[in-house]
């Protein structure tokens, strides 16, 4: 079975490819370039196309599937009504799939399930990354605020941190938010 993964994010495409690599007798093709997409799909002649929902080329590809006889086989979005649940899950995960007519439904389902899991895995990776970045940014702003308090009020570092923590607790806010306010206030007062 030939599977084409169309995704402008090379990282996500790699994550999905890795997941599908465990499937037996499947050949996987990744297309990340928008230019020449339709011609490339024509060359690959896939049985299944997986495409992220955010891809601006979806309308172009659907049009191609609708009118093109190049593939010699009708290909349609996988919207078998009996399997609405599976489609809803894939839309939730952010993946659309197109399959050649007449493929065994259980086969498609297992591939789709796998793709959905990989999309989720990628989304988790991204949110972990965003969280890690956020934590790093938090730490930076707290350090800055500590330095401001040390300079302006003669605190030691632990005292400066205690002051931030106490204020955060009193106001029911995160330490990073208080630190942010200190830094902003300092800048407004002409500090650097």
């Amino acid at each position, binding site marked *: 079975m030939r599977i084409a993964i169309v995704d402008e994010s090379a990282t996500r495409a790699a994550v999905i490819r890795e997941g599908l690599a465990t499937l037996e007798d499947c050949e996987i093709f990744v297309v990340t370039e928008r230019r020449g997409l339709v011609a490339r799909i024509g060359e690959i002649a896939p049985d299944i196309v997986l495409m992220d*929902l955010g891809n601006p080329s*979806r*309308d172009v590809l659907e049009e191609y599937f*609708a009118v093109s006889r190049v593939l010699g086989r009708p290909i349609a979005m996988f919207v078998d*009504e009996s399997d609405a649940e599976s489609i809803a899950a894939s839309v939730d995960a952010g993946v659309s799939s197109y399959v050649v007519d007449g493929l065994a439904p259980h086969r498609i389902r297992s591939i789709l399930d796998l793709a959905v899991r990989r999309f989720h895995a990628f989304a988790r990776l991204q949110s972990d990354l965003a969280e890690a970045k956020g934590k790093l940014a938090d730490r930076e702003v707290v350090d800055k605020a500590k330095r401001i308090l040390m300079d302006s009020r003669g605190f030691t570092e632990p005292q400066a941190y205690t002051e931030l923590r106490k204020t955060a607790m009193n106001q029911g806010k995160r330490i990073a938010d208080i630190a942010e306010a200190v830094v902003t206030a300092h800048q407004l007062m002409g500090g650097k």
Partner: protein
Amino acid sequence: MPPGKTHGELTIGFLPLVDACLPILAREHGFAENEGLSLRLVRDMSWATVLDRLLYGHSDAAHMVAPLAIATTLGRGRPAQSLSVPFVLGLNGNAVTMRPDLAREVNPAGGLGDPATVGAALKTCLATLGRPLRFGVVHRYSSHNYMLRYWLAACGIRPDVDVEITTVAPPFCADALESGEVDVICVGEPWNSVAVERGAGEIVLATAQIWRRGVEKVLAFREPVMEERRGDVEALVRALRKAGEHFVDPANHDVNAAILARPEYLDGNAGLIRRAISDQLLLARGGEVLKYPDFMFQHREAANFPWVSQAEWLYSQMVRWDGAGYDADEARLAARVFRPDVYRSALLGTNDPLPGASSKVEGSLAGPTSVSMQQGLITLENNSFFDRKVFDPSHLAEYVKMQARD
């Protein structure tokens, strides 16, 4: 109080195009809030995804190319799901932009061309070119596609034989012209202007010249959702009418262009957007800006009223170009997608004008004409097709037959 459940929140999907303006402004200027509605807007990059989100419940309503609402209801390309349109988001607002050398060849005088003259020149040009010209439209089921085909066919150019029409996503239209992938694009703003600014294309026609009052984007719901959320739907219709009033007031063009340009909406150039929403077009790089009144048509003459006759015209074009044949049952289903009854019920008792009829003979008016109203006063202006043919919805089947012969 209107009937139906209200829970005060609606999620609306949209593409980053200027004619997504009314839901955006209804939210930003508090018109929705005044109606007790909280709007959440979800931006996508393809009509396919806007539609998927609507069908699988990620959104309650969607900004949509009008023919797609009908195609979805009729099950073209995927299993049928009934959509309903209680509100038309706007008329026209698209342009035909050509590669500069082609533009000069078929429209040597410059300026906006005359559709019949440009069409004739294009036909001559095709005969000498020795290859079919390629046209890019934004979707198979778009008004762009139907208007373009209507114009070509009326000029004696067979759309599927003499030229190639392919789909190009709006953000890549300028690229496609530049790279020679297509020779002509028919797209909404700001994408024509983007191509002009880059010197990749010149605007030759506005679709408003092909059909002076042609239906463009609609607000679509899944039919069961619209019935279930009737109160919220009607509140939204009222909020969108208010947003339209604000949108067309020249005093608000600056502020509205700035809002639409924001990263979460169109993520575009406020200057280009301001031009489009004030009906101004820069046709060619380095040229002068032309004021073309009613390039976009969002409010006057009850522009948002979902005329059943407009749905029927779209169906006639779907039959014409899909080659599936006319079917009276399908025609009835298509007509029912547009829901003037919901529009009326939302605005009855307000001071908004309401037409007395739900259908009209499209293209029958050559100049301002007063029409009978259920509520308020209205004068409809010229709504003609460029070839002066009229579409009488009571003779839909004959219209389809006549066009098949053309």
